[in-house]
């Protein structure tokens, strides 16, 4: 390089300045700290522009990865406005060529109307990173030092860029690694959470702070059989039982609004359409600042529990109801420790406060004074180990007397018993009333039958008596005649004797009927009994113009029974049949009495009339006391008749005929041998 001598001092100064500049450039902070390539280059260009008093400096930085290049131009003030960076770039490209290594160290370039000396240096050993171009109006540009400075600057730029690239690459890798670690940790956490959430024996859902369904566990999908999107529509798609929905919406909305947890029992529809009961509880998840970030919802299937609960409740209600209806209480009693557990009904029967403490003494205190020995006896027997059947009365605090009946069953080695106790007061009272009514009825029936008999007896006796008196009167008048009609008198006297005998026969018949003071069992020929009753009733039946037909079986066996009672039954049936036909004028008043042998060693008697009959509806009432279809009847005959037949272990029934009228029949076993014990017949009240 040619250097004028006279400027040696200047040269020294310039060298010193150059050194300073070199130091300045290498010490530029942007080069060592890394940073954006554009920033590094800008700093270098600014430094170069100032140091070398350049008209412009240009840098092109190739980015080997992206393929694009960065171009930066710095212009001296004198050149500003006269040329643009793109023009400089184009001019440089056209004068320097594309191949970096073949570029001439310096050329002359006309940019706009300015003639410039231009020098270039490449970035990177092969110039692969780009190039730096500096231009000056000075003809001598670049001097040796300027060339040096330009190369150093380019080198520094390349180093700086490299350094920056390394730094940024390192940083990028670090960030990448960090991100990978974070993601991995996050994935791991999610896997764990998912595992935990999916393993929970319940349905779990996470909602957003505003209550929208965000995440649900596997169980939720399996139960509902819905997609996440469908689950979000729970308020409108019958996911919740329609009856529960309004309340659920209200509770849920209030919880979301107020931020407090909730719990509600409701029904959710399963994938098969069946609604099951769930406990639905939700609570908010908050961040460090206490703001709600999510809601966690747990759904627990309590359907089986609920069902069992309902079943238990129903069973309990049924038991209580059954105890109430049957007025039966139950109890468990430990007689050794005097500890007792009573059912509600037992408390009610005793009129004790439900649930109050019960002791042997407390119950003993309300036992009827007359029954205390019965009560204590039962307790003693139970303590001794027998299973007691007890029956005693209590007097409640209201003074009500109740009959209690019960039994207990031992369930342990000690005297611990399970038992039942029933309030039988009503049935006892009813039984007493029934007995009373029955004996009253029997009395009324006897009186009624007696009055019927009296009328029959009177009629049967009056007929022969009338004949006797008439004949006797005639006889006297014949004897008083002049001359006396002896032959006529004899004839009338003969008739008098005949009628007297006839009256005597009636009396004998009555005696046969009533001679037995005690009701007793004896062999009874029902044919004979029926004939006697027909004979007794003959005039009455005749008066009512009945056509009486009897079909009495020849082979009828005798039965063992009370003759008079059975004749009362027959008389009653005949009288009913006769009464039923009084109003009949359009057809024969036919009455049939039939006896026959029945299978099973029984005898049947049938009385069939052609009267007004009865309809099927009233059949059940026929045998009730005081039920009557007759305007002047008392309605006791059939009820008493049935009780008589039943005392003979027989059966009395009625059937409407196919035609007009009705048929009454009774059937009784031959006797004690063929049936059951006839002893109750003796117990006549």
């Amino acid at each position: 390089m040619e250097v004028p001598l006279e400027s040696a001092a200047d040269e020294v100064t310039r060298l010193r300045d150059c050194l300073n500049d070199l130091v300045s450039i290498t010490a530029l902070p942007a080069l060592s700290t890394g940073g954006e390539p554009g920033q590094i280059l800008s700093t270098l260009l600014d430094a170069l522009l100032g140091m070398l008093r350049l008209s412009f400096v240009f840098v092109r930085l190739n980015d080997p990865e992206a393929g694009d290049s960065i171009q930066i131009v710095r212009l001296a003030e004198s050149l500003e406005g006269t040329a643009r960076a793109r023009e400089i770039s184009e001019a440089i490209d056209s004068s320097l060529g594309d191949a970096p290594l073949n570029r001439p160290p310096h050329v002359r370039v006309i940019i706009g109307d300015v003639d410039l000396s231009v020098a270039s240096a490449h970035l990177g050993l092969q110039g692969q990173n780009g190039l730096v171009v500096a231009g000056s109006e000075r003809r001598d540009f670049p001097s040796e030092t300027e060339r040096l400075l330009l190369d150093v600057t380019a080198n520094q730029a390349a180093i700086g860029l490299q350094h920056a690239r390394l730094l940024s690459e390192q940083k990028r890798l670090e960030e990448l690694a960090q991100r990978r670690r974070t993601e991995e940790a996050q994935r791991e956490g999610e896997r764990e959470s998912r595992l935990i959430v999916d393993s929970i024996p319940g349905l779990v859902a996470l909602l957003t702070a505003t209550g929208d369904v965000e995440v649900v566990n596997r169980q939720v999908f399996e139960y509902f059989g819905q997609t996440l999107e469908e689950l979000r529509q729970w308020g409108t798609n019958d996911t919740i039982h329609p009856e529960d929905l309004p309340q659920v919406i209200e509770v849920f909305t209030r919880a979301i609004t107020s931020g407090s947890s909730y719990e509600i029992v409701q029904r959710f529809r399963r994938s098969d359409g069946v609604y099951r009961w769930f406990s639905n509880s939700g609570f908010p998840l908050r961040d460090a600042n206490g703001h709600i970030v999510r809601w966690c919802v747990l759904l627990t299937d309590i359907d089986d529990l609920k069902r069992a609960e309902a079943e238990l409740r129903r069973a309990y209600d049924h038991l209580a109801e059954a105890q109430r209806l049957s007025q039966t209480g139950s109890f468990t009693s430990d007689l050794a420790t005097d500890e007792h557990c009573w059912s509600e009904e037992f408390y009610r029967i005793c009129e004790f406060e439900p649930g109050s403490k019960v002791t042997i003494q407390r119950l003993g205190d309300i036992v009827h004074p007359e029954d205390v020995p019965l009560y204590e006896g039962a307790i003693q027997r139970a303590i001794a180990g027998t299973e007691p059947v007890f029956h005693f009365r209590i007097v409640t605090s209201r003074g009500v007397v109740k009959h209690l009946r019960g039994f207990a069953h031992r369930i342990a080695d000690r005297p611990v018993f399970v038992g039942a106790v029933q309030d039988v007061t009503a049935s006892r009272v009813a039984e007493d009333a029934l007995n009373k009514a029955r004996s009253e009825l029997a009395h009324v029936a006897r009186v009624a039958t007696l009055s019927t008999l009296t009328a029959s007896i009177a009629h049967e006796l009056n007929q022969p008596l009338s004949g006797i008196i008439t004949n006797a009167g005639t006889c006297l008048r014949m004897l008083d005649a002049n001359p006396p009609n002896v032959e006529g008198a004899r004839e009338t006297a003969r008739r008098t004797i005949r009628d007297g005998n006839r009256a005597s026969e009636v009396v004998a018949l009555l005696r046969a009927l009533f001679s037995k003071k005690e009701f007793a069992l004896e062999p009874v020929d029902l044919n004979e009994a029926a004939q006697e009753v027909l004979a007794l009733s003959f005039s009455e039946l005749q008066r009512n113009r009945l056509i009486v037909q009897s079909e009495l079986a020849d082979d009828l066996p005798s039965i063992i029974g009370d003759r008079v009672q059975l004749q009362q039954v027959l008389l009653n049936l005949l009288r009913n049949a006769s009464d039923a036909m009084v109003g009949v004028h359009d057809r024969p008043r036919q009455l049939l009495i039939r006896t026959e042998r029945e299978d099973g060693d029984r005898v049947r008697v049938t009385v069939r009339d052609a009267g007004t009959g009865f309809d099927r509806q009233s059949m059940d009432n026929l045998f009730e006391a005081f039920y009557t279809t007759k305007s002047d009847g008392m309605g006791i005959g059939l009820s008493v008749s049935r009780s008589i037949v039943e005392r003979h272990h027989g059966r009395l029934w009625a059937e409407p005929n196919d035609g007009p009228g009705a048929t009454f029949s009774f059937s009784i076993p031959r006797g004690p041998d063929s049936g059951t014990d006839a002893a109750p017949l003796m117990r006549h009240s």
Partner: protein
Amino acid sequence: MGTPSLVSVVDDDESVRESLPDLLREFGFAAEAFSSAEAFLASDVVSETSCLLLDVAMPGMSGPDLQQELRRRQRDIPIVFITAQGDETVRPRLLAQGAVECLFKPFSDTALLDALNAALRMR
């Protein structure tokens, strides 16, 4: 003494049919006996009968039935009922329906004669 008045007896009881005509003849009446109302109506003595001794209860046509039938035929024969049924309520009812008397069996011969005389006076 002219032709005796005819008294007809209608009763289903044989002893009455045997005994009463003899007594009536002792009283001086002519007497005929019939075992049923139907038999009496079928006989030729209906128009000649001055008084009817009529049983109340009989198989077939009863005493009151015969009374109505005679009234329907405009045979106004005085009727004395005789009954073995000791029911006091029967008498006023029969009297109200136009019977001369109602005698309860057994009755005395004088009671019968009084009733017959009362009946014949009505003719």
